[in-house]
């Protein structure tokens, strides 16, 4: 299926998670997600766990975590 990570098109197997898509996008980014220096967000701006299921056409973004004051 096709998804995008930071607007880059990624072709990934059906049933892939958000983490799989980030892994396919960039190994170093995946490691940063796993140690929480980067966070995955969906197109609505919600934080998404790397284990979250992805749908065909999903757009996700990896960014620095939002501050929780």
């Amino acid at each position, binding site marked *: 299926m096709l998804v995008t990570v930071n607007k880059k098109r990624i072709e990934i*197997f059906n049933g*892939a998670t958000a983490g*799989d*898509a980030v892994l396919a996008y960039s190994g170093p980014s995946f490691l940063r997600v796993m140690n929480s220096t980067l966070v995955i967000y969906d197109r609505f701006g919600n934080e998404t766990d*790397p*284990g*979250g*299921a*992805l749908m065909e056409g*999903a757009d996700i973004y990896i960014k620095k975590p939002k501050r929780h004051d």
Partner: protein
Amino acid sequence: MTKYFSGMLTAMMLFFATIGFSQDPEKVEPVEVIILHTNDMHAKIDNFPKLAYLADSLRKIHPYVFLVSAGDNFTGNPVVDMIPDKGYPMIDLMNHCGFDVSCFGNHEFDLGQDFLNKRIGQANFPFICCNLDASGAILKQPKPYVVLNAGPDITLAFLGLIQLDANGLPSSHPSKMTGIRFSDGVSKALDFRWLKEKYNILILLTHLGVEEDVRLADSLPEADLIIGGHSHTLIEKSMTENGVRIVQAGSNLKYVGKTVLTIEKGKITGIRDEVVPLSAIKNSNKEMEDLVKKYNENEEFSKVVGVTETKMEGAGELGSLMTDALTDQLKVDFAFQNNGGIRIQSIEKGNITLKDIYKLDPFGNQVVIFKMKADEIKSLICYAYQLEKGIDLQVSGMTYSVKDNGNHQCGEVAMKLPCGKKLDPSKEYSVAMNNYIAATYKFDHRDPGNAASVTTAEALINFLKSKKTVDYSGVNRALLKP
């Protein structure tokens, strides 16, 4: 006398103040209902004592507190998944916490229908799903919805929905769902519009993912609230689509969602929602702590799942074991395992325990299956060889050799079946690998691949249990040709 009248006056003032003497007798005070919601707990049990403490604390001061789960209660923790009574710890802990209802998640099916029936039977709360027909299956037909009461006048209808993949099934191994028919959740939900008219309050308890929840809200604006799961989304800021509030609380029981409904004359007049990080709750329920400790210290993990007749050493022997498990358990032609995913150097001769398996394969990797032709398999082997500057992929179902063209460039690749014949270039083979290889290795494949909804470790455990004894002495199926 003056003292008497003064006392009477005070009492009368208090009386009228209490009954609201000047109030409109038609006016009904608003009622607040608190819904605590989890989703995608994935068998993570460590925060249950904090969840129980929070729920109990709210129940002490509030008459109407409900605790609900939006599915995927199971799968993701060996102390729940890989024991003979698989899944039971979650049901026990959810019972102790006082859950009121759960919808089905796709990973509920990972238990298998027999186990799932048992777990649902042990639960003190219903599992609901409206887009599932189990009339031809082992699974007992769940109710589509449940109605919870908050006092005599307020009824909340919860309707359960489960996601489907492109293949029309939830994301679990198809063999686990034999005989069950599924229909599109969003379409099916429309058949239950009447719940809103009958009960005034309609809450959709979904395991669809946030994108589908948005589609659902667009189709069913009558709904008051969607409590979602599946996409592991942490909705921290209120999210409303087409007038329908959508909430979801991350995953792995790191958070619990708290949605407060203000209800007047049976109808919702206000919704407040927040997600509460359970790490921020400093107290915990002591009884639950003991239960969680008991489950985490399960002696099952020292139990023997198989025996090796010889010490297994190196990537060749260990990787052959791991890939044989995949070809055997997933019924595929070939399987590959990258050396980087083999996390121990050896397993001593003798007993193999569950602990050994989780040391060997600790990542919780999922199995992905591709349909591939020989030239595509060759491209995978070559990519891995050049990536790691040497043999990287262990294999089952075939042997292969790589000739180095110099400077770690992949040259001739010779692939042979166990009978000694070459692979048929026109044939499509089924090939299993872990999700790490599937996501990161750049190789030719016309088939996009499909997650098999089983972990590589689970396959290995089941393989060893079925074989009982293995011997991989000297096995090495991937060679560098001189």
